[in-house]
């Protein structure tokens, strides 16, 4: 097992943890953190592939992901704060009015 395989395995593991967290947790903050975990798992995969291929494309992609993630954190957190202010709860299941 070489370095790349170990790193990719770690990336997949982290992504899975993040995905399961998004699906099963109710607290909006935790869900949000799990989303970040999934993003960083992909970043890790990008960087690993950049290293394997010996070029910078993957690293550039990782930078883009970080920028987008930073912007997303701003919007996402402000939404969560707004919801918490109105409902006194950060549970995502409570914010289920937009349905049939």
């Amino acid at each position, binding site marked *: 097992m070489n370095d790349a395989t170990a790193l990719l395995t770690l990336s997949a593991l982290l992504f899975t943890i993040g*995905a399961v967290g*998004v*699906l*099963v947790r109710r607290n909006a903050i935790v*869900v949000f953190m799990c989303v970040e975990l999934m993003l960083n798992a992909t970043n890790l995969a990008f960087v690993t592939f950049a290293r394997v291929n010996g070029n910078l494309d993957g690293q550039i992609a990782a930078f883009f992901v970080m920028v987008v993630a930073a912007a997303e954190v701003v919007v996402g957190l402000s939404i969560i704060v707004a919801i918490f202010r109105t409902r006194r709860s950060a549970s*995502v*299941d409570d*914010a*289920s*009015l*937009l*349905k*049939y």
Partner: protein
Amino acid sequence: MLETSAADGVLALGWLLVAVPLASAVVLLVGGRRTDPIGHILGTLAPLVSFVIGVVMFVALLGREEAERGAGQRLFTWIDVGGFSVDMGVRFDQLSALFVLLITGVGSLIHIYSIGYMAHDPNRRRFFAFLNLFVAAMLTLVLADDYLVLFLGWEGVGLASYLLIGFWQERWSAAVAAKKAFVVNRVGDLGMALGVMLMFATFGTSSFAGVAAGMPATSDLVATVLGLLLLLAAAGKSAQVPLQSWLLDAMEGPTPVSALIHAATMVTAGVYLVVRSGYVYAQSEIASTAVVIVGLVTLLVGATIGCAKDDIKKVLAGSTMSQIGYMMLAAGLGPAGYAFAIFHLLTHGFFKANMFLGAGSVMHAMDDDVDMRHYGALSRAMPVTFATFAMGYLAIIGFPGFSGFWSKDRIIEAAFADNIVVGLGALLGAGITAFYMTRLMLMTFFSQRRWEDGVKPHESPLSMTGPLVVLAALSVVGGVLILGGWIVDWLEPLTGPEPEHAFGFPAWLMTVAVTVVVIAGVGVAWALFGARPVERVPRARVSPVTRAARRDLYGDALNETVFMRPGQRLTRSLVQVDDRGIDGSVTGLAALVSGTSGQARRTQTGYVRSYALAMLAGALLVVLSLLAVTLT
């Protein structure tokens, strides 16, 4: 045959014939109740003015050379669409002239009679407006020089007939009779409409001249179909078998209407159409034979019905059917019979109008009772009505010297010359006519009193007896038209020369035979209704023929079983198909979509995690399928 010469001088006034009664009808209908006081005066003056114009034009036509007697005048273009053009024109020729004089002359007399007859009716103005409308439409019909313009008048008289049959619309039976007349006439009108379409498809025009010019070059099939379609139209309007059933019910209308529309003029429009379209029937043996058969059957059916009825107007209605059957028969014989058909039409117009008005006068005296079994011995009580009615009676049975004698004899002669069976049928008809008319005379004016309690018969006012006297005089002297063969020569340019009769026996023998049959008919009627008292209640145990005749020879029953009931069943089943099948499939589809979407929207739970799961599943699906594609 149909070329016209310019209508100059007084002959250019033809449009006024129609315009005057039409204007009067419009004034009386639009003016409403305000015109009530002048309704009957204006309504009577209008046909009188038309009659005077008609006489002046007729005299002018008499003064012309024979070749120039077809005065044609183009008023304006009525329809001009693509290659189809119809001119509104007036055609005042030998045939139209006779009809104009009959319609306006007899029409005026009946208008005068109606002043007295309808005096107590609150809607007398409306009655006169409808009568004027009828006169205008009927004149349009006979003055047209194009089948489409003729059709306009044809529908106009149908409308006027409907309005007048149902004039007392508060009576259920009158409303039903009007509707029946309208519907049965519509069947005939369908033939007319199809005929006009066929003319346009074949000749590109529907004018008389155009059709006559194109006729010799057409195939026999087209000529036969056209002839049969026109016969259907004529049968509807003239109450001929198989469209005869409406005429007997039409007697629900006021009696002057029965006299004018359902005896003297409108019902003869079919005969006019056949005679006018002689060039069509000249091309088709089948169609002209069909006309003869229809005429013969109707003349026997009508006469049979007339024998069994106790309602005085229905006897006269059956008689009208029968007499028009004679005219149709003559018209079917071609140039040999056209002039006699028209001659009989004119004399019939006189004596039948006379007798209908006489019947109206009797009903007036008997408190609107129409049952002849409640009459009897009225000759003393109503001497003028009796005397005038007797003139009509002698005319219709063909008493020598009276108008009917000349006209009916000629038709029977022509029928014998054509075919022995047709001739014998016509001869038999003459005998039955003598029987039922004698029965009517005996039951009404002779035998013993059978009046209802409280009825005091009295002679009618002068406005009613005056027209009766004039019409009685015409019934007597109407035969002068045939003196020296005048009417035959007069119509010859239109009908073509009369072929030589190939008689196997001298004409005087014919006259003797007819007279003998008539005397036999009168004798039988005398034996049954004159020599012994008339029962006040009709006998229930009678022969099957009488039973059938009392029920109009099952004409209505036939129509109901063959057309009405299956038609109703058809429409009901169509409604079922529409409700269950077509509407069902549309609403079912809508319900399916609505139900499915109602279920489908349950998946929109609003929980973020369910959406996230859906996204994950989708992404996995995409990845797996990509893998599957790359690995294979």
